[in-house]
């Protein structure tokens, strides 16, 4: 029953996790972290597509200042759908539940995550939440925005707030299950010799992410529960007519939702560390600083939520405190950018597609992070708050940062996941298209925001039209950029060349096992004797 038995296998066909059983039942009852990762991949791709269509409709609507494509109510439902699905049903599970699930045990030299059954349960919980959210959309939609601000969401909205909040509430438990699983896995299932400071940086970032998942998500859960209770009873704790305080909702909501931003970006940072080390053929500069910066971001990230409330009439003193803490949390992020840049120095750089995505991440995340400073600066935020500047800023982080990293990671581990290699030039073209389309879409929105165009505006003053048209054209290019990978990655599944165990010549335990990996990941439990990214340094 242990790993030593496997070499005795007489089967001529090489068995791996994909081909050992093709039945649907074997997929739906699997406890294999690699298969669960693929279940997540299929699910979130579906939700990404729906949310992207909503975004496309909004961008087309915003071609003209009048509301001529859809009426306001529909527009409001579109941006709520886009926000809710993108945040909770795509971004938050994207890197952790897909790439993390697949790669984490491989990186640790483990057979699986600590609680395989819980892992499968988390996917089912996720699907249950997603179905409820889909029901809310199909049954008429929700028009609160993804932030569910009270008292609009609790009293005034006539959308299916109960179902949507319920869907997010349920999906939250899948986040908690994943986070809990990862934390215990990283503590308990590291291969012999794999000490904390020998871990790949992706593992560090997943650990930091899991901390947030476990400690922040329950606060969102209880907040949504209170909203549902308020809608159900007709009275509730956030109701100003009862003496309740709508700002308390914002505090509790952002206590989750600001750290949630780090749930979305930290795993991206981890992936990018892997990519830069691999394609520059160098150990990440300042490895320990980068590793600890992940934890620092996770912890400091809990102290800054009040910067979403500078103009909400929270106390001036609280505003000052939150502003200071927000600046402090940006220090470790800035440090990471410097360290990645320094890693390129005297490296031996190859320009494969995953690395192009990593470069895209570096550029866009830097812009996104620096514009965050504008919003952390109290006086400047007063002007920019709730304008398109904010929209542009967080899309630079979420899409420019996270989605770029996700795509980079997907391209990097694709040969490991599928055992096939995709067409490299097609992937490079897609990376460049996405980068250009993205900037064309979102850079004009910084200017729009500076000029004062509020977010969530369906009809807007005509002087904002030119920039909106540019933005919509960019969105078209971005959309094409996202369609390309579907084509060449799909094509590679059938026609792609077979990938060896280590097509990139990378270090890391996941590259020591065949592609696709066997069901138990490793024939022999690996023993680690070196640090991560042990590339030959110096001359080449």
């Amino acid at each position, binding site marked *: 029953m242990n790993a030593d038995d*496997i070499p005795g296998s007489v089967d001529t066909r090489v068995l791996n996790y994909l081909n050992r059983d093709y039945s649907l039942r074997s997929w739906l009852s699997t406890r294999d972290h690699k298969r669960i990762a693929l279940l997540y991949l299929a699910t979130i791709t579906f939700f990404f597509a729906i949310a992207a269509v909503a975004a496309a409709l909004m961008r087309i609507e915003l071609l003209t200042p009048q509301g001529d494509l859809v009426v306001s109510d529909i527009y409001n439902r579109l941006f709520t759908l886009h926000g809710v699905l993108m945040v909770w049903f795509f971004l938050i599970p994207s890197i952790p539940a897909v790439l993390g699930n697949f790669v984490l045990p491989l990186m640790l030299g483990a057979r699986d995550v600590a609680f395989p059954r819980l892992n499968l349960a988390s996917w089912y919980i996720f699907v249950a939440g997603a179905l409820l959210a889909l029901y809310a959309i199909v049954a008429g939609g929700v028009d609160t925005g993804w932030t569910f601000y009270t008292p609009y969401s609790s009293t005034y909205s006539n959308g299916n707030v109960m179902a949507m909040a319920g869907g997010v509430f349920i999906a939250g438990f899948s986040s908690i299950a994943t986070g*809990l699983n990862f934390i215990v896995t990283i503590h308990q299932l590291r291969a012999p010799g794999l000490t904390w400071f020998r871990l790949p940086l992706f593992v560090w970032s997943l650990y930091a992410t899991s901390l947030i998942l*476990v400690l922040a998500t*329950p606060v969102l859960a209880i907040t949504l529960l209170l909203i549902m*209770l308020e809608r159900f009873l007709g009275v509730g704790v956030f109701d100003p007519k009862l*003496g309740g305080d709508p700002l308390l909702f914002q505090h509790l909501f952002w206590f989750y939702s600001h750290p949630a931003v780090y749930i979305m970006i930290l795993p991206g940072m981890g992936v990018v560390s892997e990519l830069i080390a691999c394609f520059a053929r160098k150990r990440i500069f300042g490895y320990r600083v980068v590793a600890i910066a992940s934890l620092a971001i996770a912890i400091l990230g809990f102290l800054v939520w009040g910067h979403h409330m500078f103009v909400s009439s929270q106390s001036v003193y609280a505003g000052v405190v939150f502003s200071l803490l927000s600046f402090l949390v940006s220090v470790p992020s800035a440090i990471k950018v410097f360290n990645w840049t320094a890693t390129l120095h005297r490296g031996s750089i190859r320009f494969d597609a995953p690395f192009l995505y990593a470069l895209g991440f570096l550029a866009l995340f830097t812009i996104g992070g620096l514009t965050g400073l504008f919003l952390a600066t109290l006086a400047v935020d007063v002007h920019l708050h709730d304008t398109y500047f904010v929209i542009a800023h967080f899309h630079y982080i979420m899409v420019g940062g996270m989605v770029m990293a996700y795509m980079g990671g997907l391209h990097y581990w694709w040969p490991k996941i599928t055992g096939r290699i995709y067409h490299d030039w097609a992937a490079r073209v897609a990376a460049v298209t996405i980068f250009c389309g993205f900037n064309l879409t979102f850079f004009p929105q910084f200017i729009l925001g500076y000029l004062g165009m509020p977010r969530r505006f369906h009809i807007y003053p005509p002087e904002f039209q030119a920039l909106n048209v540019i933005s919509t054209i960019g969105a078209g290019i971005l959309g094409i950029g996202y369609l390309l990978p579907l084509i060449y990655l799909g094509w590679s599944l059938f026609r792609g060349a077979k990938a060896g165990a280590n097509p990139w010549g990378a270090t890391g335990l996941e590259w020591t096992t065949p592609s696709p990996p066997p069901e138990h990941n490793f024939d022999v439990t690996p023993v680690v004797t070196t640090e991560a990214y042990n590339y030959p340094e110096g001359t080449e």
Partner: protein
Amino acid sequence: MKAEGTRVESPYVDAAQRALAQQLGMWAFIATEVLLFGGLFIAYAVYRVHYPDAFADGSRRLDFWIGTINTAVLLASSLAMAIADIAVRRDRRRLLSGCLAMTWLLGALFLVLKGYEYHQKFVEHLIPGPHFAPAGGPAAPEQLFFVLYFAMTGLHAVHMVIGLGVIAWLFVLSRRGRLGPASPGRVELAGLYWHFVDCVWVFLYPLLYLIR
């Protein structure tokens, strides 16, 4: 082995590693629960400071004796659970199933008393909403107190119901002789959960019943 399609169920090297992993997992889950209830406690604290009179008035409308007796009942059920945990390690099977039964019964008694209290609140028009009409007129934001009362005790009761399900399952296992010193993990983990739910009530009791 391979041809039969069996797989190594456990990712662990040995039972000790597995036990520690489960401990860690359970405590991480309890940290999650602390923050889940914590959101309610924070909302409570904010309004309690804002409206001390309304909260004192609301508290006076709760049944002090049911609250106190229920606290004692829960503490006793925790004791039974703690004894069960010792019993399973010493392989005292009859004591184990007896203690599990005791834990379950005391937990159920708690819920019955709680249900009776909810019924009382219904009769006295203390359910928040359009029919909220306490005798003698409410101190104005008093509905806030009752919304929080029902949210906090309701969430706690949901946890109790889940706990009762788990303990009933353990009881069945113990009657079948499936619990013993070789694998004390299940009783121990269920115990952690049960004691934690108890701890939540330990705080709900003074915050809801003892304001004067």
